[in-house]
């Protein structure tokens, strides 16, 4: 893929938009369609596109596998940590109402935002990790 000019240029143009769109999907998921799962996949797909066009080595420099491994576990930890936080604040596990002492609905809002963030981090890291595994095996 390294010798085709048009895909390279188009990728350069599209990549920021894809990543931005992923973030929009991530944080707008409360109001429109979207959420952590979709955003994670789109975010991962952006990096996969980069790796497809510019080669695996450049992508590995952009997004090192060590970072991805941290991301894979960090997302699950955030999710479980929000649950534990609810437990510590006197509620039940994954009970977001206690996250905000004034308004339970705000607590729910915050909890959902954090949980979706955890899901998004895990899913995007997992997608890129799996792609690296497949692509790195071929050589």
């Amino acid at each position, binding site marked *: 893929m390294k010798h085709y000019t048009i895909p390279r240029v188009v990728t350069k143009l599209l990549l920021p938009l894809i990543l931005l769109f992923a973030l929009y999907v991530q944080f707008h998921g409360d109001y429109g*369609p979207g959420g952590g*799962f979709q955003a994670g996949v789109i975010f991962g797909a952006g990096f996969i596109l980069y790796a497809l066009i510019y080669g695996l080595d450049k992508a590995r420099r952009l997004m090192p596998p060590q970072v991805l491994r941290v991301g894979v576990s960090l997302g699950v930890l955030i999710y479980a940590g929000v649950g534990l936080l609810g437990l510590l604040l006197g509620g039940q596990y994954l009970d977001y109402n206690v996250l905000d002492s004034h308004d339970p609905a705000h607590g729910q809002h915050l909890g959902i935002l954090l949980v979706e963030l955890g899901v998004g981090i895990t*899913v995007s890291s997992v997608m890129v990790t799996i792609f690296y595994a*497949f692509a790195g095996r071929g050589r």
Partner: protein
Amino acid sequence: MQILGHFNYWIFIILMMCGFYMVIASDNLIKKLVGLGIFQTSVFILYISMGKITGGTAPIVIDKAVVYSNPLPHVLILTAIVVGVATTSLGLALVVRIQEAYGTIEADEILAQDRDDSL
């Protein structure tokens, strides 16, 4: 009307049986995985079509009083899709390892090689 009311289930059954046929009739492991994917998506279609209400709209609350389609199947299928791709990639990874170990991804050739080994 009663007959037409079931057409979504028949489409689901046709798709499901296509996937099922691919799984049991082809020896190629990747084709089996694609068959599993078709099978899986047919189940998604079944769930989503169950949640649909005629004249309903997507389950995102707006101020006007409207009929919403059932959000519960959507939630279930949403997570199932992502888990599905994760498990499919795990299966593909297994296929890659099988190819490296046996030099083939045809189920009957793998069985034949195993039989030769045990003799």
